[in-house]
């Protein structure tokens, strides 16, 4: 799940604003209420929790930590080879965990050299076995299958890169801003073999009434199922569909019932006071992602930030069928880390865990 950056540098008419520093939001710690009643390996409901009626708990994973490996802002994806791949933005690290949470290896550290990271923002494994890490500044680094060697790096010119999806050994879908053009397309098919951009599409910024908010919360997220891309923009309550060559394939209103939309009116001045800025940022919600489930249903997590908890995030979850029919919407679910489009397994930070090193795997009830 995205741990997007919400940058304080914004104001009316400022188009040159780019997010220069990653706020800790992401970090987005967990505002986790209560405790999940189900543990162990059998399926059980998370009874007494908002998600208990719609999710079956599968198992709990305690992820291994060491003095060198701490989960602060993990971005998690299921590894096709088993277990989990993680990049941690704040720790500038790539990790592989086994199914049981054991730490298999880790790589990377803060820096700009090969194998070092500024702000890693996405990870995936190619069919060849190589592991691809995206950084927020647009750099891609290819590691060997065990994270032991850097096979190559490339600068893509896609900044504010917040999401990636592996399409093949040579193609990857990147979500970010090309050449700093906020108005331009946000999804890009990158040819890894040639080191070139194949095509770009999805330009949601132009339709945003509140450009200050759309600049600050300007991330795009996408999920690929077969040859269809589902995409969302942080402030837009619509799910957009595209073919991989960029042709629009429809859109559905997300149909939120509890989503707090950004105000149409921009702030009338640049907000520099962090307290005031935090209050402004907490006044509306942010779409945090979109995920295909194997049967074509869609999960759309969204977030709100809380100044009173150092801008940690509260997570909410909407489910739709492919036709856009509203299935359910829950507020205050645990921090959603990943949805595996192949198995349908959903990884959360375990409810009640103050830090993201204890994960709960669940599946949507039919």
């Amino acid at each position, binding site marked *: 799940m995205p741990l997007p950056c919400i940058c304080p540098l914004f104001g009316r008419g400022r188009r040159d604003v780019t997010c220069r520093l990653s706020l*800790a939001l992401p970090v987005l710690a967990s505002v986790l209420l209560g405790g999940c009643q189900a543990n162990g390996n059998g399926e059980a409901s998370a009874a007494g929790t908002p998600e208990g009626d719609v999710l079956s708990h599968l198992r709990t994973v305690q992820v291994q930590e060491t003095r060198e490996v701490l989960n602060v802002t993990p971005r998690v994806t299921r590894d096709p080879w088993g277990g989990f791949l993680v990049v941690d933005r*704040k720790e500038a690290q790539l990790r592989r965990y086994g199914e049981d949470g054991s730490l298999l290896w880790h790589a990377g550290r803060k820096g700009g050299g090969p194998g070092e990271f500024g702000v890693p923002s996405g990870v995936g494994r190619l069919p060849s076995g190589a592991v691809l890490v995206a950084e927020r500044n647009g750099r891609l680094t290819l590691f060997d299958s065990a994270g032991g060697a850097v096979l190559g790096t490339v600068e893509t010119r896609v900044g504010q890169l917040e999401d990636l999806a592996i399409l093949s050994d040579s193609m990857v879908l990147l979500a970010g801003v090309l050449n700093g053009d906020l108005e331009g397309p946000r999804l890009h098919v990158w040819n890894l073999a040639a080191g070139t951009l194949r095509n770009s599409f999805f330009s949601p910024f132009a339709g945003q009434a509140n450009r200050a908010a759309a600049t600050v919360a300007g991330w795009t997220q996408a999920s690929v199922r077969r040859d269809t891309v589902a995409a969302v923009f942080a402030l837009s309550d619509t799910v957009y569909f595209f073919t991989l060559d960029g042709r629009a394939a429809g859109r559905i209103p997300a149909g939120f019932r509890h989503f707090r939309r950004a105000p149409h009116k921009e702030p009338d001045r640049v907000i520099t006071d*962090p307290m005031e800025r935090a209050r402004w940022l907490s006044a509306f919600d942010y779409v945090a992602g979109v995920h295909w489930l194997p049967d074509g249903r869609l999960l759309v997590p969204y977030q709100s930030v809380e100044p*009173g908890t*150092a801008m940690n995030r509260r997570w909410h979850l909407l489910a739709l069928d492919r036709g856009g029919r509203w299935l359910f919407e829950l507020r205050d679910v645990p921090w959603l880390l990943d949805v595996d489009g192949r198995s349908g397994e959903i990884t959360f930070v375990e409810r009640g865990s103050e*830090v993201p090193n204890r994960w709960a795997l669940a599946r949507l009830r039919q």
Partner: protein
Amino acid sequence: MGTRALAAVALFSLAACSAPAPRTLTAGDALPAEWKPADVDSGVALLWVFRTRDCLSCEEVDEHLRRVQREFGASVAIVAVHVGNARDATVPRSFFASRRVALARQVRHTPREFRRTFGDVTLPAVLVASGSRIVWSSAGPASSALTPHRLDGVLRRHVGGSESVAPEHAAGNKSQR
């Protein structure tokens, strides 16, 4: 200008002249007793003195704090000095919990009592203390002095125990708020 206005100006001038000089927490200063962590064999502490707003900004001091706890472990105590009101106490608590920073001590001063005790201090500030003395400081947001190289170098020299407690001044740490 009437008599009353002149009196007001005079009073103002008098107040300005007699105001205490601004004070900066810097190398060589005594470490306030209430900030001193207990149970640190090396006697070395890293302190972050901050306002509530510093937990809500893009400040990335937590990365330094985690690196120090990873590199130095229990040899360096990490102390948080929050300058803020009681109603804001949840902010730093959440900040340190979510950023995985293990504190040896957390202290809170209201802005008023902090100013009364320490004067007009540039915040946020990162301090290194050895024993009962501050031996290094870096004040102000995004201080260029706060680099891993400089900070870790200072800590290494003092954790070893061979270093005398001689004050060290970081570049750019003298500015006043």
